[in-house]
């Protein structure tokens, strides 16, 4: 009996083009489309920058110094960067910039008077880099870093010359005599600090997936009751020889199944997006750490941690469906039911992010306890609890989710057993609502 109810629920929802499109196809299109576009655009920008560098950058130079070290700089830029230096004569930087722009050049270097003298007297010299920016594009940003790199490259080049001339040491050593190698001792394992930094970055990304699934689940559940009211099928449904709690249960199961499908589709899209964006040069280093990291964070918390994490995600999604069905039941049609849960992501989003900024080792116990108890914090609390070895908070958090779930499920069943679900607001109340709308 319950089975045929669930099948009807899933069939009716899945065949709805709007749902199919919004929940299952859209994430695929958005992520894959965005990934492909981002990948292509980034690749194009990088090519543009590389081509410009290969062809040799053209730089306007206002050389107020005209001493031996500025000549060294010009030589360096020509030799190592294949740069074309166009000397400009101007009485002020702004005039020099006008000339630069009229020549169609992108950068102006100004070497002020006294540059060579400073360096000879062992004082740092300054080279001003002006970049003519037409647009805040990725290509422009790439080029800007090329022009500043020329100057910092020159500085290193000078260092090695100075070190060679004045000291009898290996310049490579002299320029970096100490290297820090940070290790982190985390939940009983020694981990590379770079990895941990990437890992904490991942803590910001990780909640996004459950958060999306949770808000999907809420809105699908709301839709499933909104549709019954809109299509006037509720009255028959409530008169059928089925216990009211079985109706509730079948609606929840149906929306859980569809949110599962939606999550899978989203996951496929998201991983495609990540891979196409990270296959591009710029992000290479960070994304490889991300990839090894996903295994990393779950590797750190182990099988028990992963199990509790999945349980916590399941109960959060279940709670969201139940809440969505409850809130949605106050709407009169699909649209108003959906608007009832439109902001549910806020109550999901906040606990997750408060949990991110909670330090399980340093914060007061009361705060950690409070955060563990508020609904929807569970997935993150579980991760943090296992990382910090304070597993009890993970368990408290999941238990609290189950508690909230029981409470909302109770209210929901009561609502389905009562008559308000069918007759909605009384007419008198409706009238006062119309008056309010006028203001």
């Amino acid at each position: 009996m319950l089975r045929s109810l669930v099948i009807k629920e899933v069939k009716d929802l899945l065949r709805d083009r709007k749902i199919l499109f919004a929940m299952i196809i859209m994430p695929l299109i958005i992520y894959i489309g965005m990934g492909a576009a981002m990948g292509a655009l980034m690749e194009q920008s990088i090519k543009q920058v590389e081509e410009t560098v290969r062809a040799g950058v053209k730089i306007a130079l206002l050389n107020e110094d005209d001493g031996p070290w500025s000549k060294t700089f010009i030589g360096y830029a020509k030799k190592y960067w294949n740069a074309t230096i166009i000397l400009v004569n101007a009485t002020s930087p702004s005039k020099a910039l006008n000339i630069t722009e009229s020549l169609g050049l992108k950068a102006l270097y100004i070497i002020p008077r006294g540059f060579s003298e400073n360096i000879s007297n062992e004082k740092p010299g300054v080279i001003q880099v002006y970049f003519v920016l037409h647009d805040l594009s990725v290509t422009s940003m790439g080029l800007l870093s090329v022009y500043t790199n020329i100057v910092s490259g020159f500085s290193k080049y000078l260092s090695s010359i100075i070190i060679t001339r004045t000291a009898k040491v290996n310049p490579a050593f002299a320029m970096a005599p100490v290297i820090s190698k940070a290790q982190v001792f985390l939940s009983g394992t020694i981990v590379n600090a770079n990895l941990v930094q990437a890992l904490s970055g991942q803590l910001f990304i990780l909640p996004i997936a459950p958060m999306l699934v949770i808000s999907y689940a809420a809105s699908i559940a709301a839709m499933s009751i909104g549709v019954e009211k809109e299509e006037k099928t509720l009255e028959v449904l409530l008169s059928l020889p089925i216990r009211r709690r079985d109706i509730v249960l079948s609606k929840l199961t149906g929306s859980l199944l569809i949110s599962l499908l939606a999550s899978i589709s989203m996951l496929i899209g998201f991983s495609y997006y990540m891979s196409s964006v990270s296959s591009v040069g710029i992000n290479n280093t960070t994304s490889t750490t991300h990839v090894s990291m996903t295994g990393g964070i779950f590797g750190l918390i182990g099988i028990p941690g992963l199990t509790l994490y999945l349980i916590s995600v399941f109960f959060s999604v279940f709670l969201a469906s139940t809440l969505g069905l409850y809130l949605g039941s106050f709407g009169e049609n699909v649209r108003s039911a959906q608007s009832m849960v439109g902001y549910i992501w806020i109550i999901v989003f906040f606990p997750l992010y408060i949990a991110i900024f909670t330090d399980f080792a340093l914060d007061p116990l009361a705060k950690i306890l409070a955060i563990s108890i508020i609904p929807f914090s569970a997935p993150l609390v579980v991760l943090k609890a296992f990382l910090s070895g304070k597993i009890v908070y993970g368990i408290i958090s999941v238990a609290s989710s189950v508690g909230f779930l029981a409470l909302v499920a109770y209210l929901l069943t009561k609502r389905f057993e009562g008559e308000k679900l069918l007759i909605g607001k009384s007419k008198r109340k409706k009238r006062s609502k119309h008056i309010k709308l006028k203001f």
Partner: protein
Amino acid sequence: MSNVVEVKDLVKIYPGGVKAVNGLSFTVREGEIYGLIGPNGAGKTTTLRIIATLLKPTSGRVEVAGYDVVENPDEVRRNISYLPEEAGAYRNLTGIEYLRFMAELYARNREEAERMVKEAIEISGLGDKIYDKTSVYSKGMKRRLLLARTLMVKPRLAILDEPTSGLDVIHALHVRNIVLKYAKEHNVTILLSSHNMLEVEYLCDRVGIIYKGKLYVEGRPSELIEEYKASNLEEVFAKVVGVHA
């Protein structure tokens, strides 16, 4: 003969304060077709919804097949099949999928469910259209599908709130014949409401005229016509409602 429906001193006040039913009493006997007639807003739908366990009485007692609608709603629902005044079908299901889904909820086994669906297709008269999604059905087609699903389960009591509303003459005729045939063949008791006096006269063994939530007269159509010295039920209705209006 035992009573399938017993309504005693029923009062229903809606949350907004509207007194829709005001001390209504009547009984429906086993195997009969009972018609509730009354002007718009008389409280017919409200009464039928209470009998179908969808609304709770404010006071009074309602029993269906011996079960109290407040104390034993699950038992009551097992004995009834209800056609609401305004109802739709799931738009993304085909007619036959809708019937199958409903049949599975009532039938004890697969064969029984298939038999119900077969009968429902016949009752509905939808032919090949039964394989189309209900979203493409006309109002009348939907009404026939829903009526078919109400009757196919052969309930102890079928509650039909304006069964032929929205149907053309031919289809209304078809539906009336089906209702009559079903009630007598399968010993289904039927409680219906209607505005169509011809229909009520033709179908019902007994009728009750309700007005402002109260029962004013009750009896066999022929008896009422005689009693009120009218030539048909429409005149009886006009006299009763006119007198009290």
